[in-house]
């Protein structure tokens, strides 16, 4: 099939309201990849956004059983991107949970289905780096500060920040997203410099491991 025919065929199935989501995923991704189309022009042709098309194409990477489940649950478009990023296990879990919710309440998740999907996936994939770093103790942060300083890995601003963060953690304050992101950036720097390492020779292996585990290093 040439590209023009493939585009026409994709447009037809895209706009076919009676076709299930599973059918759309399988047919569109088959046509798309068989004829060497690109996302940009195909999205323009079917009058959608590149993200919507790309998400649908990515759903085609799942196995037939999972695509069948997607088709049955028929999740809203705003969940497609999240599903397309998920592992099969995460996707299956979120779809099942969503389906249960619909059955119990008799209605779909009204406002934020995307967040619902994300949270149920995170529930089985474990905490994020951000969450793990945020859970580090004041003494771990203080230790990272000491080692970062010893390795000359920190500037004055970062030293001040770590001091303040460890003091805040000590009194049980929850770090903001911005603070966590900065903390992650600083940890990355300290780790790159070798200050926090597996098999540390400084007698601080346990605390180094905690930081490295949180950073998934």
């Amino acid at each position, binding site marked *: 099939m040439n590209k023009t025919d493939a585009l026409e065929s994709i447009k037809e199935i895209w706009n076919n309201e009676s076709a299930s989501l599973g059918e759309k995923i399988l047919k569109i991704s088959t046509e798309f990849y068989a004829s060497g189309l690109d996302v940009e022009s195909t999205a323009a042709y079917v009058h959608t956004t590149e*993200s919507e098309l790309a*998400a649908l194409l990515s759903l085609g990477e799942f196995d037939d059983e999972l695509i069948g489940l997607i088709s049955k649950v028929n999740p809203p*478009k705003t969940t497609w991107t*999240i599903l397309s*990023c998920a592992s099969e296990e995460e996707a299956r879990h979120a779809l099942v949970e969503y389906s249960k919710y619909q059955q119990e309440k008799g209605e779909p998740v009204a406002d934020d289905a995307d967040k619902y999907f994300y949270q149920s*996936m995170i529930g089985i994939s474990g905490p994020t780096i951000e969450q793990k770093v945020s859970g580090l103790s004041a003494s771990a942060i203080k230790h990272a500060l000491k*080692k970062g*300083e010893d390795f000359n890995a920190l500037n004055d601003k970062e030293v001040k920040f770590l001091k303040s963060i460890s003091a805040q953690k000590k009194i049980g304050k929850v770090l903001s997203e911005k603070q966590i992101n900065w903390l992650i950036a600083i940890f990355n720097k300290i780790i790159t410099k070798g200050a926090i390492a597996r098999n540390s020779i*400084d007698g601080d292996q346990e605390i180094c491991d905690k930081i490295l585990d949180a950073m*998934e290093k």
Partner: protein
Amino acid sequence: MGIRIVKNYPSPRLMETIGATNQKPSEAIGELVANCFDARISDEKMEICVDMRDGKIVVLDNGKGMTDSVLEKAVCIAEDMSQHIERGQGAKGHFGMGFKTSCSTLGGFYEIYTRPIGNQKEYHVAFDISDYSLRPSGADAWDVQIEDSDFNINGPLENKSHGTAFVISHLKDKNITVSAVLSYLGEAFKGHIETGDSIVVIDDSGSYLAQPKKYDFIQGTKIDIDTACGPNDCFRITGWMALDKITHNDGLYGFNIYRNNQLVLKWDKSWFRAHLMTSRIIGEVNLDFLDATFYKQGLQQDEKWTIINVHMKEYLKDIVKASNTVSKQGNVSKPAVLKKIVDDLRNDYGEDPVIDAKTEPETSEPSKTADDTGKSVQGAIKNIVKERSLVLKKEGEILISYLEKSGSDKNRGAFDYIYDDTEDVAKLQVILFRDHPLFEKNPNWELMEIVATSDAIYRLLVETLSYDAYEARTIRNEWLWKRTAKGEIADE
């Protein structure tokens, strides 16, 4: 009118105040190690040991040691030792300040044990810094007691026939990080270690050999530096430079400057404009003819330095250009483009092209995955939040959510959206691609969220809901105004 001669002795407090430096413990130990190298016996390899056990720091060498007359001069503050001993070219000591400054930085009590070569005597001197602070000013205040004895094999010099040991106790930092000391010594004395000298660091967990620092640069980009400047080209600059595999926003790039094989200036960026695009430039240069500061953490900014600066800025122009080009538009991941950049760079500096250069693309560390497919929502979706909704006369309320997604495609924009009007309530999902080059400089993410959402609103209105551009802009601006006006979000 008369003249009175007064005795102008420095206060003995000086012994304490010279220790009020911003030297890190590793740098202070490095300064003592530098002194060891100055005690080398002709071409013999130096074996230096830094023992950090038992609440003390012992820096021990197998150098030529000091006779009592040399030791007498060495303990004087600011004594020029070149007047008293044969040190030859390349001596690191210059001001007669280094070991006193460093010992006082590290602790409140220090001793020197030394056995001069060809002598059966061992000399010992001790400094109690707190005692100096109590002494009254005057010539006597500076008296130092030098003890001599036969070899004491139970002392820090053990059974060495010659050498010197600095022993510092009453440490200010009682928890010095051994790995930081080891890493610093490996970097600071790279040239010595590479030519066969050894530095061992010992603590309670074991003994460790300092290793020279290793670099990870793009293959083929390492260029040897051998250039001269100044009157009759009297200032010769040698070393190497290369392009790092990664860009840095951590400041760890530029040139490590060595003087007589000792690192005196770390990651100096004086010779090019420091920027993310130039942050691949790394290198090491030897500037033996320049004077260091008295504790060797920097160079004196004199006329020679100015001449070097002018010369090096010009000399580095081509590698600066190459760093910029490599860092642009993902060129580092395009083997053909990268090869051309590397070849051009080598050509600019008169080096032969690299045959069969493996131009490995830059890779980021893979994120932890939930299964074998390597996919997980955890690493890919960074953030999902509810945004201020959009209310339109015709379509009613459109709920907005905003998510940040990792990854980016060169043909795609920095943000996009998905619109869903198939349910009872229409929803707009704004997507920001965090790995887009636009966000390389770690932007204000909150601001980016607003920009991405307002862009999505405008595009939705024009592309999907068929509003004319003027009307779409007005609606977008209204939303933007409400979104950014103080208190609006809180009111919601």
